Every structure is written in C-alpha cells, then in structure tokens.
C-alpha cells in the first residue's frame, strides 16, 4: 500500500471518545501540535461516566509534555494541588522492614568507566559505607522532605536529578481542557450509545450519542478507560493478559487528611497480597491498595488500606477492577486506544500517565496525512508493544526479587517462572552487577540498579578493576560523596516552603 503515491483522502477529523486524563491529554497534545494543519478535533465526554483518576504520581517526562503544550508550571501546580516528586519509596518489598527509594537520578559518580555501585558493592561490608541512599542527592532530599528545581550548571551536584509531580488527576483533565479548547478542540457533552462500523472495511465510521447526534470521524481515539468502547466492544481487538506474572487485579482507593511533613515522593508499601500507595498532594493524601483477589478478600484489602491511613478518611473507599496486560493492537483499523483502554500496568512505578504520553507522542510521530494508514498502525504498535513489555519486566522484578515468604501471594510471585528476557537480566546483575543495555525503553541503568539493590539482588562479585584503588582510597572517596550529598541536600529548600511560593493552590 502507498508505495508510490499517497492514497486515501486527507485525514481531517479526529474524534476522541472519553474525557478523563487520557482524553484531555490526547486533545491537548494533538491540538497544540497539529491544530494548525487542518485537523479538526472533537472530544466527546459524559458527565454520567466518572473518571478513574485517583491521586496520580508521574515520571519526569510529564514536564516535557506540559512544556510542549505551553503550560506554566506554577499555574499547573496550583490548579491540580500538585506536589513535587523526586522518586518512589518501596517499603517492605524484599523483606519486612526494608525501605529503599528509586530516585530520579543516578547514584554516586562513575570513575574510570566503572559504575558507582561497583565501588559500593566492594565496600558494603564496611560499616562506614552505609546504604546506597547516602550516595544519591534525590534520595537524601526525599528523606529530608526537601525540594528545589535542579540547577542549570552541569558541574553542580544540584544538577544531577530530575523531578516529576504528584497531582489530583481529576483536576488535571479540566485544566488541560482550557488549553485544548484554546487550540480549537470542540467538546461535546453526551454519552455514546452506539458505534457504527464501515460495512466493508470494518473501521469505525461514526459514534451515536444519546440525543441521536451522529459524530463522524476519520480517526477515533478510544479514551473510554477499561471499558474499551471502540477498541474492544466495537472492534473486538483482543487482549494479552499478563496476570500470570502480575497477579494483582483490583484496587481500592481513598483520600485522607495529611499528617507530617509534605514528602517529595510517592510511597509503595508491600502488603500481604499486593501493595499500598501513598501519594502526597497539597491539600490531602491519596491512598490506595492494589491487590490480587485470588489471595485476599475485598473486605480484608479495604481494612488493610483504612487501618493504615495517616489521617481522617475524606470519602468512602472506591473499588476498581482491572486485568493487567495490553490490547493486542493498540492501533486497530482507524482507532487508537490511549490510556486504560489500551492496557493496564499497575502504577507501582508511576507509569500510567507516562504510557498515555507515549501513546500521544508516538501517534504524533506517526500521524497519518491520509486515511490510508495501515503501515503507520503497524509501526506504532511495534513501538508501543516494546514499551509495554519493557515496563512489564521492570514491574515483575519488584515482586519476584523478594525474600518474603509470609503469605501465599509472596510465595507465588517469588517462585513463579518469569519471562526469559527478565531472567537473563537478573542473572547478569547477580553475577557482577552488570545491567543489560538497550536504547529503547523507559527505565535505564540507574533505575535497574536502584531496584535490583533495593530488592536485595546483590551481585556476588564486583568489577575487578575496582581493586585498582586501595580500600582506603575508595573509602575516602565514598566519605567525600556522602558529605557532598548530605551538604547539598541540607542546603536545599524545604518542599512545603518551596511550594508555598511556587504553585500553591489558590495562587492563580
């Protein structure tokens, strides 16, 4: 198809079905980048259908998305009651009582081409060495509830981290709506009651609203969440389940009043049959419990959540059900599934909004000129599949690399067979702390190192070239690094204080 001349008619109409985070991010992203190319974008949403948004924790990439659509950071922070985020804390994962932080930054400094963690591993039996935490500025800042934006000067240790946000997802979508509408997106209120398929090609021709209106489109974006109104109910695309490796299938969420200092990180605490999240926002704390229904009951899971709240509950707990995995084709015919309609990976590493953003970015990169776009869809799906699979392996690592044997759930995930792609990665790290290299994919070496070591996957040996320095020299370097990180962290601004003058809700 399309070997010598462009076929099909000009792609002019995009219809986004669903108005949650995925819908309005898609609308804002597409309209700001392509609004001037003769593309008309309509978003259909229904007040009757609630959005799934529970406090959202994000990854540093979101800043790029916000910047590219011209969002002012302080305005965004105020509108969504956002806080800053320097990493994710994992509590009780490898063993009860453990805690480590996966930071948005590297550990220590590499030397002579040898990663810092090799030196750490050579010195870990020295009591002075202490945990890896002490060699990461963002981790030290997390522990001390500090935040300030990274410095511009690349020579400064204060430039060696990145940051993300934790925000109220229910407020993000309305905030984006303003930007999207300013770029020409048309919003339609109404529930979609029917989907018309092209009788010959099987693609989506139009959607029908409750009031009888028929909305035609060249390309449809399914942002209807788990329901998958277009991609699954209409197009029957099919779904690859990954529940053998990631057995959690339910979550219960509830906000509560905050207690203690405002923390610049998200916490994930392992529980008997899953894990509990804690996401600090400006005005409250978002909490949830992701669990496997095969290993606990809804009532028990809810009790574990409620019993561990730090403050007064602010609403009734809400339950969600999901199936971990992804749609067989996220772009099928003329429908692209973005958000939960495309797939679900539990938010253990805050990847939900990242995967929405990747869906949008890759759609922009492959955005068709005409309605002949089967080749675009093929390439899009190849890239998105790779992204999902690489995140999947990283998530499985958190469960599988554990010593916990205190419940059937942990016994299952600890002993289950894992994908060969992950088994090879783990074997290589166990041997000498080497991280499998690739160019595509979200999580790079420092992330893998943080989680391997945090999950007590300790390499049995270290890089022999470490011994080119004497133990005394290494110890002195490490002491220098500890002092550097500690001093830098203590000089940083307090997280709450920084927000008070940069993006406090009510400021705009």
């Amino acid at each position, binding site marked *: 198809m399309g070997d010598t001349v462009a076929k099909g008619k000009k792609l002019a109409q995009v219809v986004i079905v669903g108005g949650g985070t995925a819908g309005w991010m898609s609308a804002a992203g597409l309209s700001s980048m392509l609004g001037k190319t003769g593309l008309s974008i309509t978003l259909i949403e229904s007040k009757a259908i609630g959005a799934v948004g529970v406090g959202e924790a994000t990854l540093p990439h979101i800043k790029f998305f916000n910047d590219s659509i011209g969002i002012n950071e302080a305005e965004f922070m105020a509108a969504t009651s956002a806080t800053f985020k320097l990493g994710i804390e994992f509590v009780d994962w490898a063993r009860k009582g453990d805690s480590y932080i996966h930071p948005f930054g590297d550990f220590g400094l590499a030397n002579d081409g040898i990663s810092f963690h090799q030196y750490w591993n050579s010195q870990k039996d020295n009591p002075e060495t202490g945990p890896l935490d002490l060699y990461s500025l963002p981790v030290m800042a997390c522990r001390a509830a500090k935040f300030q934006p990274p410095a511009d000067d690349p020579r400064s240790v204060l430039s060696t981290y990145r940051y993300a946000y934790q925000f109220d997802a229910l407020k993000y979508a309305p905030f984006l709506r303003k930007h999207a509408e300013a770029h020409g997106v048309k919003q339609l209120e109404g529930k979609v009651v029917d989907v018309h398929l092209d009788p010959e090609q099987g693609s989506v021709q139009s959607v029908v609203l409750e009031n009888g209106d028929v909305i035609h489109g060249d390309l449809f974006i399914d942002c209807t969440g788990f329901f998958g109104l277009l991609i699954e109910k209409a197009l029957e695309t099919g779904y690859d389940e990954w529940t053998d490796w990631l057995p959690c299938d339910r979550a219960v969420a509830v906000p509560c009043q905050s207690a203690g200092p405002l923390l610049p990180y998200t916490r994930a605490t392992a529980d008997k049959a899953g894990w509990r999240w804690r996401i600090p926002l400006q005005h409250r704390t978002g909490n949830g419990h992701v669990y496997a229904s095969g290993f606990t009951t809804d009532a028990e899971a809810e009790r574990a959540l409620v019993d561990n709240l730090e403050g007064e509950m602010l609403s009734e707990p809400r339950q969600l059900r999901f199936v971990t995995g992804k749609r067989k084709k996220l772009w099928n015919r003329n429908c692209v599934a973005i958000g939960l309609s495309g797939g679900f990976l539990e938010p253990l590493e805050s990847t939900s909004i990242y995967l929405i953003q990747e869906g949008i970015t890759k759609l922009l990169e*492959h955005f068709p000129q005409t309605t002949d776009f089967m080749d675009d869809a093929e390439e899009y799906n190849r890239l998105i599949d790779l992204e999902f699979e690489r995140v999947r392996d990283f998530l499985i690592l958190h469960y599988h690399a554990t010593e916990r044997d205190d419940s059937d759930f942990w016994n299952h995930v600890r002993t289950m067979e894992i994908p060969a792609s992950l088994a090879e990665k783990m074997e290589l790290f166990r041997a000498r702390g080497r991280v499998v290299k690739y160019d595509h994919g979200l999580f790079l070496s420092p992330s893998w190192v943080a989680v391997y070591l945090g999950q007590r996957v300790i390499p049995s040996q270290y890089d022999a070239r470490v011994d080119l320095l004497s133990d005394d020299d290494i110890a002195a370097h490490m002491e220098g690094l500890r002092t550097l990180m500690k001093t830098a962290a203590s000089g940083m601004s307090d997280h709450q204080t920084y927000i008070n003058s940069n993006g406090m809700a009510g400021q705009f």
Partner: protein
Amino acid sequence: MKDGGAIRKIVIVGNGLRAWLPAAYLSARLPKTVYSISVVEYGKKYDIGSLVARPMVRRMHQLLQISEQELAQSANAKLVLGVSVPHSSGQTITMPYGQYGVDRAGAEFHQYWRRAFGEGQAKELSEYNLAYKLDQAGVYARSAPKGLPAIDYGYSLSQAGYCELLKAHALGAGVSCHEGAAGSDGLSCGAGHVTRIPTSDGNAECDMVIDANMCASTSTADKSRLSGWHGNILQLPNQSPIPGIELQLLIMAMERLIGLWPDRQFLACETGEYNRLDRAVRDRVADMELLFSRGVEEIKQSAALARKIKVFSRRGRIPIEDHEVFSKSEWLAALIGSGIMPVQHDRLADRIPIGDLSRWLRSIDLAITQTVERAKEGRRVR
C-alpha cells in the same frame, strides 16, 4: 577481586592496527602495575594507505590523551566530515556526519524539506547539509553558524602512522611486544581455553586472548575463530567496506569488554551479553552494507532494514533500532541516495505556512553558503 580468580595476563594475537588499537585502549584502562598486556605479532599487516576514523574515535583519543597535534604529526591527520561510498546503482553516496539543516518544533528538518521540495520550494536535500557542502568545496570549518547544529567530524589518517602512534602509546603504557613463532598462526590449538601463545622465543602465558586476526573463512573447522567472545578468547570483528566502521567496531568491542570486564570464570551470562551486543551492532552495520550492495528488492532478508525502507518511503520517518551504529543523518543520506523518496512528509511539517517555510530554508541555505565561503577565504589566507 580478592578471590584469586582475577585476570592478570592478556595477550593480543595479531598484527598492525587491529592488534595495537586494542593494546593501546586496554593499557589505558588496565594499568601495568597490575595487568600484563602483550602483543604477539602474527599474521598479515593490513596497514597501508589511509583510513577513516569516525567522530566517536575522539572519545578514545581523549582517554589515551592523544592530541590533534600528535595525530597530525604522526598520522597525517585531516578532518573528515563524512564519507562517500559506492552504491550498487553505480552512484556514489556521501554520508555526512553532521545533521541536515536543523530540527524544529518537534519535527525533523528533512520533513520540512520534503514538504517544500514537493512544492518546488527547496533545493536538493544535500544543499542543506553544512558538512556535505564544506566537503564538496574541499574545506573545513570547526564551528557552525548560529542556529545550526555543531559540526561533527572525524579524521582521515595514515594507517601506518596511526598504527605506530597507538603502538608507541601502548608500549609507553607497559605493553610488551613479541614476535610470533615461525610456522604457527598463534592460536592453532583451537581449544575453548588458551593458556599460552607460542612466540619466537618461547611462550606468552595468558588468562585471556584477544584474537586480532581476521576471522577465518567458513571453510575452517576452527570454531574458536568465530567472531565474538567464547571462553577466554575474544575474536575481534571483521572489516567493513564502509570507511571508518572497522575502527569504530574495534573501539566498541574494547569498550564493551571493559564494561563487562570478566574474571577467570568467563561466565556465560557475561560473554553472552557481549555477544548479544556484538551481534546487534554487526547487524546494524550489515543493514547499511546491504542497502549499498543490493537492489531495494533483495533487502527483505533483514527485517530491520526492510522496515527502515518501508517506513521511510512512506513518510520519511527513520525507525531507530537498539544499538544503531550509523546516525540518523547517515541513514537519511543513504536512503535518499538509494533513490528512496518519501511519498509524503510528516504532518508536523504542515504547521508553518509555505511562504515562511521557504524563507526559513533560504536562510539556512544562506548561512551554509556563507560559512563555506568564509572557510574558502580562510584557506586562501593560509
């Protein structure tokens, strides 16, 4: 390592640049106080004429503290901004190291160019590549005009001179040099594990061997000569018809070896990771070679190359695999040069009115032309 399993003695078997580059690289990473590195000279020297060093070679020169002055004196170094390679069509394709134009607002330059070209508002793509234009004029510049990406450059080097330079660095860092034993090719034992290499005056003991000879042809039964790392023998990658690639692959092999620096157990997971990366890199090079040597129709044997061609011919996007060796600019030059023109341009390039687009292209053209002119002036003055 304190368990006594550490590698101490490394022997490089081979001759010329293929042996002395690894020797120089390793001697900078493995100090002579702890490691003994020897070169046992066997086999043929290929060091005649000149060779191209791609931009990444500067990374190694930094490590070895080789200055440009030294390169000029010892190896007659000249700046190189790209290479020209004959294509099976009979044409010669120039692949510049530097970018085409400049990317803008989330879309690649060539997308804007494709749109304007389609509307008769642009010159040939190569006209917007500063490196190409400088090369055509036979001049060099080290800095790009404001608004255009920095110039990336490599060198053309006298092969014999460069080899001598690396050898001097290696010897200075404590590498010892031996002549091979007569009537042997050094690795004739063929076993998976080699402990000594015969020399003209005895044997060189080794914990690990780097085989710098060319891979033997497939007719030999000597399995130890397969490219890659097997047991304690690491076979260096072979030549490539694309200038600069052999040198780059040698450096990458050494960087990879140091990144996975083993002990005497030679764990399968570590040699396996080396070989996985080695294969991936060689596959990416093979894709480029295939594009030059075959017609577009015969290319299906590489899925990655077939995909590059298919996706590119559609709308100019170049799918980038893990572990690419060539830059996007080089792929762009090679694909366009092979006669593949994208049917459409990226929709993101439609955001600018055609008048503005055409003015912008003219301003880039002008900036490039002026830089080339100034470079010519400079040459006249000198």
